């Protein structure tokens, strides 16, 4: 897949940064404001997909390769799983084992923020991965 024109590239470079930062904000502040790991993760993926569309597949894959995305996918899932299993330290699967802290601060509500981050990484990686694979899928010539 080839990239697009210079104007598109320049605007995308500016815009993608904003989208990525906004996505990260949605992930981090999910327990305080509307949003959460999932919505933020999709936004992060959309930001990267925008880069793929503007700069072509090779340009974006220099930032995150397919293998790396696949690995991050598993790592995010494992991290969330680990948060669940670490609840056993308090006696229950999925116990909110981190101290709850002062409400309305970023570091509060125990595991909620960490869960959001794990989900964010997972969702970002897997959606980016599936887009890249779908975009790269070429129909073989017959015969």
């Amino acid at each position, binding site marked *: 897949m080839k990239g697009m024109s210079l104007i598109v590239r320049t605007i995308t470079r500016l815009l993608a940064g904003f989208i990525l930062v906004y996505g990260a904000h949605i992930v981090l502040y999910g327990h305080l404001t509307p949003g959460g790991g999932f919505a933020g993760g999709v936004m992060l993926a959309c930001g990267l997909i925008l880069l793929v569309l503007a700069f072509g597949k090779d340009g974006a894959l220099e930032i995150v390769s397919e293998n790396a995305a696949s690995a991050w996918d598993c790592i995010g899932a494992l991290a969330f799983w680990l948060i669940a299993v670490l609840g056993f330290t308090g006696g*229950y699967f999925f116990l909110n084992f981190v101290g709850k802290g002062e409400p309305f601060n970023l570091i509060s509500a125990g595991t909620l923020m960490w869960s959001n981050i794990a989900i964010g990484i997972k969702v970002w990686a897997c959606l980016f991965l599936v887009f890249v694979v779908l975009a790269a899928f070429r129909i073989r010539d017959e015969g």
Partner: protein
Amino acid sequence: MNNNNVLLPLFIAMPLGAAFLIVLIGRLREAISDLVAVVITALLVVGSLAVAGLEPQVYHMGGWEPPFGINLVLDPLSTLLLIIISVVSFLVCLYSINYMTSYTSKPKYYGLLMLMIAGMNGVVLTGDLFNMYVFLEIGAIASYALVAFGTEHEELEASFKYLVLGSVASSFILFGIALTYSATGTLNLADIASTIGSKGLNPVMIFASALFIGGFGLKAAMVPFHAWLPDAHPSAPAPISAMLSGLLIKALGVYALIRLFYSVIGVGGMYTNILIVLGILSMVVGVILAVGQWDFKRLLAYHSISQMGYVMLGVGIGSPLALLGALFHLLNHSVFKSLLFLCSGAVEHSTGTRQLKQLGGLWSKMPVTGSTCSVASLSISGVPPFNGFWSKLLIIVGAVQAADRFGLWAYILAAITVLVSFLTLVSFVKVQRYVLFGALSEKLQKVREVPAAMCLALIVFAILCLGLGVLCPFVLEQLIEPARDVVLDKAAYISLVLPG
């Protein structure tokens, strides 16, 4: 009562973690994925046998009391399903080590297999309606992907059909959940049961239960909703066919229906009649379609529909004896149908075809596959002393005993059951005749027996077939009767989850 046994969440957490891990590190060495899968399923077998002796108990996820949090419920019915799932999936993993070498991306295969096991364990253990939906989707989505694993024409097409029908069914189930939530204000199964019990069935719950019958009935491949199964089950790789026919339609379909209609919604006359009609239809239509088949796996798939009809019939009749037979047949069917699919896989692995007319005389070349296939055929046809005989006998006697409720119809039901059993026998005599006996054709002279791990899985299954038949009274008393008592006692389920 509530001692929060740490094993309960591990039934879901272990296969989930294993799935993530296999996909992450499986790309380094394929052998790692074999090893992890076999070890984890072996641990699940040990775990399921360990919880078999325990008292019924409830696990509160995250320490939140029901109905505010999600809870896991272990009672004898769940235990029965857990044991079936663990044992079959362990043997299937063992079998896959060699069989799946003819496919690419083995780690992803094991990852999806683990996810499917996690989904089924989740459905079987959960005590929450929406959570049941979520885990049902995990199992179902994993199975859609596994059906398409070979990525050939038929496989993709079967998978598309299965996916479309399956996700429509899931949507109906979710719509039913929305209605149930609206009517009762809760999602906890026991809480729903107690709310409904005090008010009686209102039209909203009737609507919801109709959606549940449609949705779960499709997952269980009851006859008006069976169109996907004869395509999907034969298209999958043989171990996956064994998982789908042996486990998935039971855990996602039949178990969920039993749990919802006996423990939660409560069975009235209308529901039982619907289940009986669906059961009879499945039995007759399934076996009639099966008799004319010449594709080995497709024939087996139609027999799955027919045999699940037996289970549904027993569940619908609902007398203690018929339920006992239904649950025992559930166990037996998962053993002999898995074995038959694995045998068909072994034949396909060695000869490269599964058309009955191209086979023949394999007994001399593949003694292990041949003898285990015969054992399974005798089992499914209901020949004593194999396990299928006893469960069919119990269902037939249960149907006859229901004469006081259904009058003459009870005898007609019993007669149809016997007739279907006979047709099953005819159909499997055909399989024996064309696959194992007769002349060995030119092309098949070089055929060899399958590798040792595959043989081991086949032999263990055959021993289970025989063992379940010979030790029938013991199995009934230890496993099936407690499960049956749980099914019939709705109040006990409510007081188990919501004490006081």
